[in-house]
């Protein structure tokens, strides 16, 4: 058994022990004639706060108790137990991973003697999974549950990926036009032959393709990545590891609109929905490279802007009040947006010429360190 395998085996045993402890606690309650309950930290705005010191969106310490014998809890209790059983017996004990949808289908069936299904919609089992994660104080990758993978990467670096008993060495500089697909679980990935100075992450596939074609990462010694929209857990965890373990600066490139800001803030501080995982998903050293509203002026893009919609304005007003957007530069940025009410896509830079982004915009911005915090 390799060191990596040993480590992994140890992790599995840890989680199994946690699940066992939870199960035995329930048995104890049953034997005492008590109403069995699960202690689950409350997820929701009432229990979420912004940790100024560590710059992370975090879950508070409020907990709720989910009782088996409570009319409004019973069904969810049952579903949480189905998750527990599946994770322990089907996944961890067999060293297998599964998607959320696998679990949904594995545990969906009609309850004996009724016309009711254990799970109706996948959202129900997804919820139960999150409940179980937070109840155990762990995250779903440790439970061997996979989200849909999303995101691609290219650059001068080799990753070592362990898939069960096999290890693959992947040179990210030799991935062609498609790049390396970031897996949904990146815990087992190791980095080697790192030949880059920073990470550039773009929210859009199109920008990744543009810069990849232009050989931008080669010329600028960077790792190029796309999240393809809102970043998936695998991509976020990978970014955090690149930043923490390799001490690489990370620059983020999104459209100039509230949605772009939100994608950025999620990668950097974590999200409200997964506040319990900010610790291992947040990449707090990330910088916002662009597009900013100021860029529209600086790079004379006014003619290719889009008028902000009501919803954008509403969203911007909300975000202005978030604790993690309270720094002066961001307040100014949001104010400017609210004043001009203009959005711009990154592709707007193509109005100059196709390679304007790789030859002018990015080098200038990075050289000037013209970022938002």
């Amino acid at each position, binding site marked *: 058994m390799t060191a990596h395998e040993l480590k992994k085996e140890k992790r599995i045993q840890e989680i199994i022990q946690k699940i066992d402890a939870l199960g035995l606690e329930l*048995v104890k309650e*049953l034997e005492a004639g008590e*109403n*069995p309950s699960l202690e689950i930290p409350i997820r929701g705005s009432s229990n979420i706060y912004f940790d100024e010191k560590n710059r992370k969106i975090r879950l508070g310490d409020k907990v709720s108790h989910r009782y088996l*014998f409570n009319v409004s809890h019973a069904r969810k209790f*049952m579903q949480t137990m189905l998750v527990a*059983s599946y994770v*322990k*017996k089907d996944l961890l004990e067999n060293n297998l991973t599964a998607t959320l949808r696998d679990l949904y289908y594995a545990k969906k069936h009609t309850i004996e003697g009724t016309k009711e299904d*254990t799970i109706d919609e996948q959202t129900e089992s997804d919820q139960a999974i999150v409940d179980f994660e937070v109840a155990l104080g762990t995250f779903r990758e440790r439970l061997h549950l996979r989200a849909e993978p999303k995101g691609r990467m290219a650059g001068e670096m080799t990753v070592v990926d362990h898939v069960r008993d096999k290890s693959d060495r992947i040179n990210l500089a030799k991935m062609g036009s498609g790049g390396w697909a970031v897996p949904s679980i990146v815990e087992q990935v190791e980095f080697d032959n790192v030949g880059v100075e920073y990470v550039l992450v773009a929210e859009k596939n199109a920008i990744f393709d543009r810069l990849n074609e232009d050989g931008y990462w080669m010329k600028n010694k960077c790792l190029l990545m796309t999240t393809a929209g809102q970043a998936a857990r695998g991509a976020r965890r990978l970014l955090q590891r690149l930043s923490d373990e390799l001490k690489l600066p990370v620059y983020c490139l999104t459209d100039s609109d509230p949605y772009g800001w939100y994608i950025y803030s999620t990668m950097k501080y974590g999200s409200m929905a997964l506040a319990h995982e900010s610790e291992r998903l947040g990449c707090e050293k990330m910088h916002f490279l662009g597009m900013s509203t100021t860029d529209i002026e600086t790079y004379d893009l006014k003619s290719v802007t889009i008028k902000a919609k009501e919803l954008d304005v509403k969203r911007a007003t909300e975000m202005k009040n978030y604790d993690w957007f309270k720094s002066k530069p961001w307040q100014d940025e949001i104010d400017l947006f609210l004043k001009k009410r203009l959005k711009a896509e990154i592709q707007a830079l193509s109005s100059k010429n196709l390679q304007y982004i790789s030859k002018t915009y990015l080098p200038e911005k990075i050289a000037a360190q013209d970022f938002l915090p």
Partner: protein
Amino acid sequence: MEDNTEELENAFKEYSVAEFFKKNRQMLGYSGETRSLTTIVHEYVTNSLDACEDAKILPDIGVEVDALNARPKKTVIGEGDGSATEFDLEEQMCKASLFEVLVNGIKQKRPEEYVVKYGKRGKQNVKQVVFRQPPAEGTKIVGEWAIGHIRVTVEDNGTGLPQSKVGQALGMLLAGTKFHQQKQKRGQQGIGAAYATLFAQITTGKPTDFKTGTGNNKVYSGQVSIDVKKNVPVINGLQEAKGNYRGLKVSAEFAEVSYDRSDHGVYEYLRRTALANPHAQITLVEPDKSIVVFPRASDKIPAKPPKIKPHPLGLTTSDLIDMASVTSARKLSSFLSSDFTRISDDKANELSKLLPEIDFDKHPRKMSWVEAESIVHTFHRVKFNAPDLNTLRPIGAIQLEKSLKNLLEPEFLSVIQRKPKVFRGGIPFLVEVAVAYGGKAGAPSTSKEGEVMRFANRVPLLFDAGNCAITQAVKNVDWNRYNLKNLDEQPVSVFINFVSVHVPYTGAGKLAISAEEEIVSEIRMGLMDAARKVGYYLSGLKKAEDQEKRRKIFFKYIKEVAAALHDVTGKPKAGLEAAMRKIAESKTALKDEDEQEDEELLALEEDAEKEVEEENA
């Protein structure tokens, strides 16, 4: 002088008989085909009940309503389409004395399968047949009807009438044995069986048959009619036979009446009479020969109400005139001091001083309506002692409970007898209230479920509900609070008996109790008392139902959870399941009352108490 008075009296009566009846038919209860029949039965039955009560006999009363029809006609009233339930009737059919509904030739049961009620078509009132289940598509709905005479026969096992009194009782108006005595009695409402005799005479020209015996081995039978001009009874075909018969049987033929099972009809009248008189057994034979028995619930004969003279505060102008017409006093002043309670000579004197324009020495029968009116008015300016509380004769909570259980077989019954109160500053009254839930409770004769049964001194009040203190009190109760939202749609019978020597009726028809504040408020309190208990019962039921639901939910998931927990811990499934079952059962046991529910009940109680305090303040 004596002869002169007698003549005067006769003249007064002669004038009153024909004229009064013709003019005031409605007032006496003879309006509308159904109501006229109910009034006839009411007159006979109350006489029978009173006769039995006087002699301390358990009443056994038989009522037979027989349709003596011309050949029945058949008229198509509609065709079923699987959804329509209401079918209009032609005007003529509404007046039929016999009416049946056939669907594809099969006679329908009433009220189980259909009811007849008044509905609106535009601005017109029409009578409609309303089916409980819509007749199937393509079925022919036929009304079989006939306009003819109805014979009503009522027989009792009471004291019977001595031969000499038959004419007076059945053939002389205002000659009832009750008029001279004032006591809390049923007949206060009835104008008398003699009016029924007169009504038969007017509508069919036929005399009333009778048969009576007092148990002295002599049985008399014959026919009685009224010489309208002289207001004297005419008896024909009197026969004397030997036989150990005791009781009275009266039988007469009427037109302009019709029989139906509506809530104004004979059936409902007798049902309610039986409810209010648990010691009576009443049997009804309906025109279709079906026999309905309202069985006796109790062998306890109610105590005879003491005879007392009327109290001045309970009088109306017409009461005063009526009493003056039969008094033996010769002066107005002595009439007042001798025929009433709590009017001493001093008080009579006081009254005469307040009314200098009236000659208190004149003969009472010479008192004009205007004078009677001012005397009644002035009664309220003199301070009289309150009447004796001992005069009230309620049914009694125990008897009423027996009666309602007997006839309604309710799931839950709450009976309340309130303490005596006074109205108009001194007239005592008390209220008996019962609320029956489930079983046969609820209106049998209409499509509605809930029913409110009004009684005054045990006599059912079937008409003019809108003007009645009882109806108003029922409306003033927030039934929602007692889990009886939409009373109309609940399987509930609400029973209210207003007990007083002087029932303040709204009119001479004696159909509704005047909605005076003290009365409405007292009835309302009684209703709330009774309803509260029902409310507790229902919230208990609801709780049981809720607990049952909860248990089902818990049990549903036990197997799944046990299997999962077995997967996680390796503990045997069966043991886990058993432990969960036990907890689920204790969690949903009825005695294990949820704290929250306890609080709700407590709040309900506090609410009610607060309300009572407010009322009393």
